[in-house]
């Protein structure tokens, strides 16, 4: 008898559950999320995309990517087109602070919720998920002070390898670095050049810098993909043990490999899986919020993870394969 009661209860519970999940599925069905990255084909963007797709598949809404392939004109066209197609949520990675700003305003006016990822535009939108590049610069400079500054017994000479000079990521990181170094006259910047996110250029620059400054103590690089070039110049000069290279990036398995083999001293990582799940939360919030743009903007700053020889054993790196496998 008790068993029957239990079974009935269980069946009832099951029914409610099914109804509830049917309701959630219905709630998202027919909605669309569109993603306009800077370019696919990099661990960062492919990683985000895999996570966004994963949730879309699970909850039954449509997910699509328009890939401008590093061309901001194509990106602007894609966004304009999407504004007429009216997706529920538009995820945008800005190539610089200006180029999409008007389109972002237009999209929000048309009732599309816009999430900006990692690179901010001057136009604020409902949601921003990303790293704080000023803080990133500060943290990297702090590392330099600690490794090379007064009291470390080292020369205090450091070099900086920027990305594209005008990119927000370069400008803001430089602000952070300047803020710290202005208080530390013991640190001397012997070279500060832009390598345009290109590992070959970074390598050529660093080779000359290391040679001209045999007592170089540290290097701040602005992106891990580029800094494999920086690091290989240092390694080839036989200075890997002397020169501490700190870089930043999404923290994929490439970062761990390079920390493991000594190319990078440390990587400040803005944790792609975390950013992906932050975006997914924002997407659900936006879908339930209705078409009007929110009055207050939601900003989620991704906390930086420090990846180094000491920490990669415990925190580890992510691989694109894992994320894609999870997304099915």
């Amino acid at each position, binding site marked *: 008898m008790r068993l029957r009661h239990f079974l009935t209860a269980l069946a009832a519970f099951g029914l409610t559950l099914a109804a509830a999940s049917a309701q959630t599925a219905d709630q998202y069905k027919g909605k669309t999320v569109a993603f306009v990255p800077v*370019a696919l084909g990099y*661990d960062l963007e492919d990683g985000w995309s895999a996570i966004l797709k994963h949730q879309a598949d699970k909850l039954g809404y449509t997910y699509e990517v328009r890939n401008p392939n590093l061309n901001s004109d194509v990106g602007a066209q894609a966004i304009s087109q999407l504004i007429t197609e009216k997706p529920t949520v538009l995820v945008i990675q800005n190539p610089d602070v200006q180029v999409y700003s008007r389109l972002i305003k237009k999209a929000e006016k048309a009732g599309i919720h816009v999430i900006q990822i990692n690179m901010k535009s001057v136009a604020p939108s409902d949601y921003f998920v990303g790293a704080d590049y000023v803080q990133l610069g500060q943290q990297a400079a702090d590392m330099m002070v600690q490794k090379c500054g007064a009291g470390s017994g080292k020369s205090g000479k450091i070099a900086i390898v920027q990305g594209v000079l005008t990119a927000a990521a370069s400008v803001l990181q430089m602000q952070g670095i300047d803020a710290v170094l202005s208080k530390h006259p013991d640190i001397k910047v*012997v070279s500060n*050049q832009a390598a345009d996110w290109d590992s*070959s*250029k970074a390598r050529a620059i660093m080779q*000359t810098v290391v040679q001209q400054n045999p007592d170089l103590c540290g290097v701040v690089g602005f992106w891990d993909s580029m800094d494999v070039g920086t690091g290989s110049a240092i390694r080839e000069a036989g200075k890997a043990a002397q020169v501490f290279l700190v870089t930043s990036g999404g923290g994929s398995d490439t970062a761990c490999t390079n920390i493991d083999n000594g190319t990078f001293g440390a990587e400040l990582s803005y944790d792609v899986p975390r950013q992906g799940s932050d975006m997914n939360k924002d997407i659900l919030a936006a879908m339930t919020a209705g078409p009007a743009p929110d009055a207050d903007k939601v900003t989620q700053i991704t906390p930086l993870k420090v990846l180094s020889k000491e920490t990669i054993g415990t925190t580890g790196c992510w691989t694109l394969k894992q994320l894609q496998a999870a997304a099915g």
Partner: protein
Amino acid sequence: MSRNLNQERIVLAITILLFAFFALTLPGFLTVQNVLTLLRSVSVLGILGVGMAIVVVGRGIDLAIVAIMAVSVALTLDQSAHGVPLGLATLMGFGFAVGCGVVSGLLIAYAEVPAIFATLAMAAIIAGFGQSRLLSLSEIYVTPASEPLGWIGTGRVLGVPSPVLILAAVALAGFVLLRATKLGRFIYAIGDNPRAAHVTGVPVRPIIVLQFALSAITAFLAGLITATSVSSMNTRIVDSTLIYDIILVVVIGGIGLSGGKGGIRNVIVGTLLIGVLQNGMTILDTPYDEQSIIKSVILLFAIVADSIVNPRDEQTAQQGDI
């Protein structure tokens, strides 16, 4: 006077002057180590320049050279990372490069599409197809599986970096090909006047195909150096200004784009100028953007000097520039 002062000599003079200037003013410029670094940093450019020169002398141009370099080497690294034996993967990359070169050559020689359009289209096709279909990511890293190739970019023989030695070998091979073989003479003949060459019995079409295959091989070699020295191959290099730099070292050294003129020596002179400039300015900590401006101004100066010393005459006007 004008016979003694051609563009090659002007550029060589500028290079020597700059070298002397940096040697006197910059501490640490005139050291064996720095000169080797200087040569090393332009070795890839020089190798690609030799490949381009072989095509340009025959009145062609290969705008697909960077795309071939990026995709073929990325293919090798990607395949070896996914378990294909390194030897086979290298062969696949090499085969892909040669295949692309041959297709370009066939389009130009047999379909008679102008080289500039055929290779422009090929560059876009190779890069697009490679990035979207052949490769797993836009940037392919050197993995432990492809590590045995490492010496190509990072090795040293008797203290000389291997890329410098490879540049020397490629330049020598190119020199011998163009100056000492029948094939080389044919290439000059085609560049000078394709129709006359054809009438005199030169197998024009097969030689054009061969030229593009050769430039593709230099591209693969240059790509291996690039990839192994920075432990990765970023196929986005296709979108960079590298292709202009290659044409620049070819043209600045004095090889006319109208074909039939110049040789490997011109490429070496052009490459050295770029190398001295880049190295000196990096030591001076000149920002990258300013480096490009200064580089362009000096190159423009060399071209203007040439057109003053060697004014256009009826013959050059007839042949035309590109």
